[in-house]
């Protein structure tokens, strides 16, 4: 089971990343749990200052929204690692 977290403050890009990740998980049928983290101290605990950020298995893999293809690749890589 993979845990995917989207760190976000509710901005439009954060929402878009969340939607894209949800879609990717559904279409690829990954065994993953997607969580949307909006708590500021929790976000900062990951050392992230700009949102959104993508966390897979407690590791920050992207800050900002690098586009669906890159997101798919990053999650894929973290799952197989």
């Amino acid at each position, binding site marked *: 089971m993979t845990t995917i977290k989207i760190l976000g403050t509710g901005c439009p890009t954060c929402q878009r990343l969340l939607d894209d990740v949800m879609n990717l998980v559904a279409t690829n049928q990954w065994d993953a749990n997607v969580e949307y983290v909006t708590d500021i101290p929790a976000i900062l605990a990951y*050392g992230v200052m*700009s949102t959104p950020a993508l966390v897979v298995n407690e590791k920050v893999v992207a800050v*900002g929204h690098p586009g669906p293809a890159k997101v798919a690749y990053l999650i894929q890589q973290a799952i197989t690692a």
Partner: protein
Amino acid sequence: MTENSIPAPQENALTRRKDARAWGVVAGAALIWLLLYNLIHPLANWLAYGMFAQPEGSHLGESLAFFFYDVPKIILLLGGMIFLITVLRSFFTTEQTRAWLGGKREGVGNALAALLGVVTPFCSCSAVPLFIGFVESGIPLGVTFSFLTATPVVNEVALVMLFGLFGWKVAGLYLLSGLMIAVIAGIIIGRLHLERYVEDFVWQIKVGQAALEAVKPTWSERFQSAWESTEEIVGKVWLYVVVGIAIGAGIHGYVPEDAMAHILGKNTWWSVPAGVLLGVPLYSNAAGVIPVVHALMEKGAALGTVLAFMMSVVGLSLPEMVILRRVLKPQLIGIFIAILTVAIIFTGYLFNLVLL
């Protein structure tokens, strides 16, 4: 989709091919852009005087020509320049900026923070984590404020539109005075030692080590995300641009010369503070406001008044203050607004005094 169908962006040969193709697409787009940009003027005249058959020099003809010229010009400029600005910004990250600002003295730190505030990609919704991240890593409060001030004051849409409608001198003045205001506001806040007005929980938050090893985006990724932001920004403002230019075109064709000299001219002392006050509720409508202001200036409004108004539209933004309220006590928000307001009014008077 199978697992294998997801491409690996780091693969070298593939990346090079993709980058080459991306450069090709961008170069092609640039050519088309140039071609279109040069077609606007003849096309606008043809539409206004030919297709709508208005005689040259008539009120309606002038207004129409103005409208058909300015709308495509500004939309093209916005698209092209915001794309370039976003590509430039992809070379900066907030984490990198924080590292650069660490350990800088007051003054130098404020100037650097203001400059980085302009180029670092940053949306106001990230203001809270960014503020905490900066302050926690020991960056002085005043330097942090210089960064937070420069970002909205020097707004890219406003900058591009000023460039398109007023020319590079006014755009440059706007950029410079925005930077100055950010530096001065930051230095004053630093000198006042207002750390006690930062919400207490901020000092307790433990900021984690940045876990992300820097992955350099490829050119095709930079271009792609720049294109996405350009689409997003232009999609958000184009309607304001059209409406603003329509109003501006009406003023251009119908309002007599110098009609505004009495109200918004440089000899009217209260026009600068009035412009600043008027700008506050117009937040985020810079795109619609600038064409109107441009038309007003043709009719005798003073440049300083116009610049002060512009900065107030983008800089004194209530939504941003609401976001910052989560980390700042009301006293500090109040002081920040007061300093910004005074600085903007002062800039307005200064330009009215110096220019023309």
